[in-house]
């Protein structure tokens, strides 16, 4: 589950999921909600291999990569077909569509960046610069 938290200047995304991969999948779903405002275009797949200094930074890296693909390849992500996370690296196959994404997100910040597990539940938090 994800929700957008009130933030005066930017967009703050809060995520809860039963697993770590679930947080990443929900983050993609949230991004898809914004980038996929006008659906259409042919189906496309992208394979991603990413690494970062720690798990929260990997969550930021994940979203940054999807924003980069949207901007440079007009790839609008729709869902995760495969996702494996090991320590601070991931391998994923993402399915989506080629198409125009609405103008919004510039980058993923490290402000209030969070990815934690507590009592078997995972929480993620990301602030996006818009």
């Amino acid at each position, binding site marked *: 589950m994800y929700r957008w938290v*009130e933030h*005066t200047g*930017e967009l703050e995304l809060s995520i809860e999921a039963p697993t770590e991969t679930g947080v990443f999948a929900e983050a993609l779903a949230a991004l898809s909600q914004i980038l996929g405002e006008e659906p259409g275009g042919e189906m496309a797949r992208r394979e991603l291999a990413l690494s970062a200094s720690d798990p929260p930074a990997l969550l930021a890296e994940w979203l940054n990569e999807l924003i980069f693909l949207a901007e*440079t390849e007009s790839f609008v992500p729709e869902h995760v077909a495969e996702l494996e996370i090991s320590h601070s690296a991931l391998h994923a196959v993402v399915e989506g569509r080629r198409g*125009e994404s609405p*103008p919004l997100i510039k980058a993923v*910040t*490290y402000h*209030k960046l969070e990815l934690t597990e507590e009592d078997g539940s995972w929480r993620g938090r990301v602030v996006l*610069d818009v």
Partner: protein
Amino acid sequence: MTSELRQIDEVLWEIPASARPDMRVPARVFADRELLEAIKGDRSLEQLENVATLPGIVEAALAMPDIHQGYGFPVGGVAATQVPDGVVSPGGVGYDINCGVRLLALSLDEEGLGERREALVHEISRAIPAGTGKHGALRFRGEELDRVLVDGPHALVALGIGTDDDLEHTESSGCLPGADPAAVSERALSRGEGQVGTVGSGNHFIELQRVERILDAAAAEAFGLHEGQVTILIHSGSRGLGHQVCTDYVKLMDAAIARYEIHLPDRQLACAPQSSPEGEAYLAAMAAAANYAWANRHAMAHLVREAIGRILGKETAQATRQVYDVAHNVAKIEEHNGRRVCVHRKGATRAFPAGSPDIPADYRAVGQPVFIPGSMGTSSFVLAGAPGSMERSFGTTCHGAGRRLSRHAATRQIQGAELRRQLEAQGIVVRCPSNRGLAEEAPFAYKDVERVVDVVARAGLARPVAQLRPLGVVKG
């Protein structure tokens, strides 16, 4: 936190360094009581306190009256760190490096524009692509792109785009020294290839305006502005290239802070000493992105002039003069109060006073032009830098009205289509690719720009020169 806020004078408030054990200097806010109450409504003061913890920060962490919650630094935040070993923080400049504004003054009045107003706004919207990632007609790759990064708009003038007079009337002549394309990642370069001459998204815009009121006759005359005149304000930045430079260096410095034994209350404040390999590389990459942003606004101005030529005729296009261009998000090495410092301006404008050798000769008697956009549907202001800025704010003033409501809150209160109708009912022509994007920038989402301008005038940071009323807007 805010309970320790104390009043210094009628428009200056201070949180003492003793408020938190990690603060190295006080945090100061320029505001009147009403703006201060609005500022207390989000976490911007906490963010300003965080800025006051940066190693090497001098005098105070400052906030302009348009301050609002951002990420790391608040938007409207200013911090000067000592040279050479104080830190530089990419987050203290922001993702949109050298986001800024450029004002063009046309040779005709609103009456002369007449019924061609809508056609002109439409033609500008056709000429300049809007939206994140949108590519324009100009494409620079390889060595050509490197020249843009090193020389900024000078590289475009060499190609016959724009004039030397435009360069002279640009902050730092549109070119920060020390820019190094080798410090810019391949990924950033790829994002920058096709975005020179594009407006981007968010709060970026091109606004057609009328000079509604002259507030300082001598300065207005020096800036070439008179009542009734048509002006065009361009707001954009370094686009995807700048976003990627910031992303790359926040990541690099986040990994390096332990090595420099830097402890931060917010990861987005990631920083390194200016003299460190990471600091030097960031300053070289940031300068390259800043130069790219000036080239972007320079190209946009050229495209605007071409649109003017098609609608109003070649003579009007050729007579369209650039008043000035200022940066909002940048870190610059400057001398203040007898020492060299690295001034981070995050959503704040340089505002050097009369007599400064760093402003164009024809403005030196009145001070550097500063442009304070309001919001769609409200006035913008032209100001001139005043001596108080050098004494109190590292030569800085505000950059806009400042957000009051979140984007979600704005879209809950009005739909884009309804806002479009309201603006058009006020006689403002609107071109915007996204109804949601339009609603997010609704005028009521912003603070009262007149109050913000009043505060910087009372604080002696800048003085009002002219009020501009919107006639049409092309929104990113």
